[in-house]
């Protein structure tokens, strides 16, 4: 303490200890896996550190590299897949993976970026392979659905297309030391120019439907109106029928009544009726040219009466007033 250099020495030792200590110690986070490298090469046996916490290594000659042990994602850009029925469909997929074997991962891929690129191309080719065997409708409707097929008399459950993709990707990805948890299609769309055609088809379908509705409406309208018109005609005809019957019955009754009454003295009836007819039929409108010889004038010139009566002669009125 007396010597001022002693203080410096203590300080120097302390700093050296700190430097060495900090180089010998490293922490592995909850979300990480570490790999201890000696001169850039993994140390056999104790290289992999998977448990989080404080760990030790040989100072200076060893260093730790870290890998994420969380679920990581790879997104592929949109790619066109030709379906089994020759439709082009744009598929946009993603996968979720975890670094399963950091040692293998480090040896095969070194960095996440490289691994991610490789996984993306594996994913793309697997999707093309699996979905290329499906029809477009199957891709759209049944990519996540298991299928049951008959094979040699037995029912066999085929895994869904996407789980086939997952399996394929996993087989390929195993050499990268990763485990693919899931592969999903994010979007499966039609290319723009085909979409336009779908739109126009949808449009024509709707137009067809609309025309059908309108035609059905017109049809029903005609039906209902025609039925109403028919009802009207029938009602009227039935009424006329009944009316004629009634009138006929009336006329018949009339004839019967007259016949009953007049048959008492037909000769008198003829006279009586003639008188009525003269009175009504010759009223006002008529002009008569009479001969003084007629029965009416029997006593006109001869108080004893003429012997040969003549009936009055009616002359129809010339109808100048009416067309």
């Amino acid at each position, binding site marked *: 303490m007396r010597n001022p250099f002693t203080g410096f020495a203590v300080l120097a030792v302390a700093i050296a200890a700190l430097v060495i200590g*900090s180089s010998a110690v490293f922490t*592995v986070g*909850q*979300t*990480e896996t570490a790999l201890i490298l000696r001169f850039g090469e993994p140390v056999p046996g104790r290289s992999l550190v998977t*448990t989080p*916490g*404080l760990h030790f290594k040989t100072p200076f000659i060893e260093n730790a590299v870290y890998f994420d042990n969380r*679920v990581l994602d790879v997104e592929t850009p949109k790619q066109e897949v030709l379906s089994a029925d020759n439709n082009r469909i744009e598929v946009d997929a993603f996968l979720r993976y975890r670094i399963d074997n950091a040692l293998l991962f480090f040896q095969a891929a070194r960095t996440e970026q490289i691994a991610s690129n490789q996984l993306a191309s594996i994913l793309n080719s697997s999707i093309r392979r699996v979905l290329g065997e499906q029809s*477009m*409708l199957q891709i759209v*409707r*049944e*990519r996540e*659905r298991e299928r049951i097929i008959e094979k040699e008399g037995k029912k066999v459950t085929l895994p869904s297309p996407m789980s086939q993709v997952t399996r394929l990707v996993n087989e390929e990805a195993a050499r990268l030391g990763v485990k693919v948890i*899931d592969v999903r*299609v*994010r*979007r*499966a*769309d039609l290319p723009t120019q085909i979409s*336009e055609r*779908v739109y126009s088809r*949808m*449009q024509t379908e*709707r137009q067809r439907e609309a*025309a059908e*509705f*309108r035609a*059905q*409406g017109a049809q029903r*309208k005609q039906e*209902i*109106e025609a039925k*109403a018109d028919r009802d009207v005609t029938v*009602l*009227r005809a039935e*009424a006329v029928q*009944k*009316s004629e019957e*009634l009138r006929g019955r009336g*006329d018949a*009754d009339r004839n019967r*009544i007259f016949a009953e009454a007049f048959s*008492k*003295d037909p000769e*008198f009836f003829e*006279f*009586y009726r003639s*008188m*009525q007819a003269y009175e009504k*039929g010759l*009223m*006002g*409108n008529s*002009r008569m040219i*009479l001969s*003084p*010889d007629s029965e009416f004038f029997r006593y006109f010139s001869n108080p004893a009466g003429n012997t040969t009566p003549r009936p009055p002669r009616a002359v129809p009125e010339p109808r*100048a007033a009416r067309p």
Partner: protein
Amino acid sequence: MPWSNQSGGGGGGGPWKPGNNNNGGGKGPWGQGPWGQGPSGGGRGPQPPDIEDMLRRGQDRLKQALPGGFTNGFALGGIGILAVLAWLASGFYTVQPNEAGLNLVFGEFKSRTSSGLNYNWPYPIGRVVKLQVTNQKGLDIGFRTRAAGRTGSSQVDVPEESLMLTGDENIADVKFRVIWQIDPLAPQNYAFNVRNPDETVKAVAESVMREIVGRTEIQKILTAERKVIEPAAQKQMQDVLDTYKTGVKVLQVQLQSVDPPEQVIAAFRDVTAAQQDSERMRNEAITYANRVVPEARGMASRIVQEAEAYREQTVADARGSAARFTQIYEQYAKAPRVTRERMYLETMERVFSNMNKVIIDQKQGSGVVPYLPLTELQQPQSAPANPAQPRVQPQAGGR
């Protein structure tokens, strides 16, 4: 800000290096250090001057209490002890009621803490991650709402997200919102298990909705199935997210709008209009029928009633005439010759009294006839002619 982020000195490859931070500097689980919570948070931010102040005061007191020779050594020791105490004290932190705290020691997840005052080892040994577990987050897919001044928000469509193929090879425009939160039972999964939990939620939401829409027909999507799609999507999203152990709880999937694509929406509307037209035409027809048929019934009834009236009238007339005849006949039978003559003359009298008469004696000169002034004869005819007509007519109809 070296004080606000404990992980700043994590030593190359620490778990919280900026590149790994999925929040993009936002207010996510890590952007907000455990020390940013105000005065009770252990106080790293504003503390250094205080500590120095405290140390200086302590030093002063020591200097006063001890003889000069020892001052230096004791002072150094005191500073050291106080520094250690201050460092330890900085391990206190508060967790808000809507948060959950996760204690990390040397990077390892040790325990979960709930709201209130908590303690963990201070930096660089310990670290605290706080997550807002009760906050519900909305994720819009197919559209974005943007604040547009005072008037509120405007909606911007994202067609590449919302246009989906349906099970019958049509395209539907589906916009929906996912409400989710960090699972309060497993916030550590959210924090440690998935690198991009928010992005994962979005990717899964899109994928699941497209899958569901992809196996449903467009008519069902547009109408009845809406209430089926929402819970199905929620359940399936939750299932997928659970397989990744994301620590995310999907609370609700809300379909905001389900429409045909813009290009064909007019045609779809026209179908609805056509249905209405059809219904309208039917109603018109029913209106017509309802008007015409009762009218016809009324008309029919009128025809029948008229006929009935005619029958009764005819019969009554006939009875009357017959009765009259019978009466007259009875009198006639008593004195036929006189009665007949009288009737004849009375009738003729009535007939001739209303009539223009020309009496021509054929025996005296048949040549008179050609000189008859016919035009003159016609003149007085129109006045008495008309009133006489109605009397004639009923009898004419009777026949």
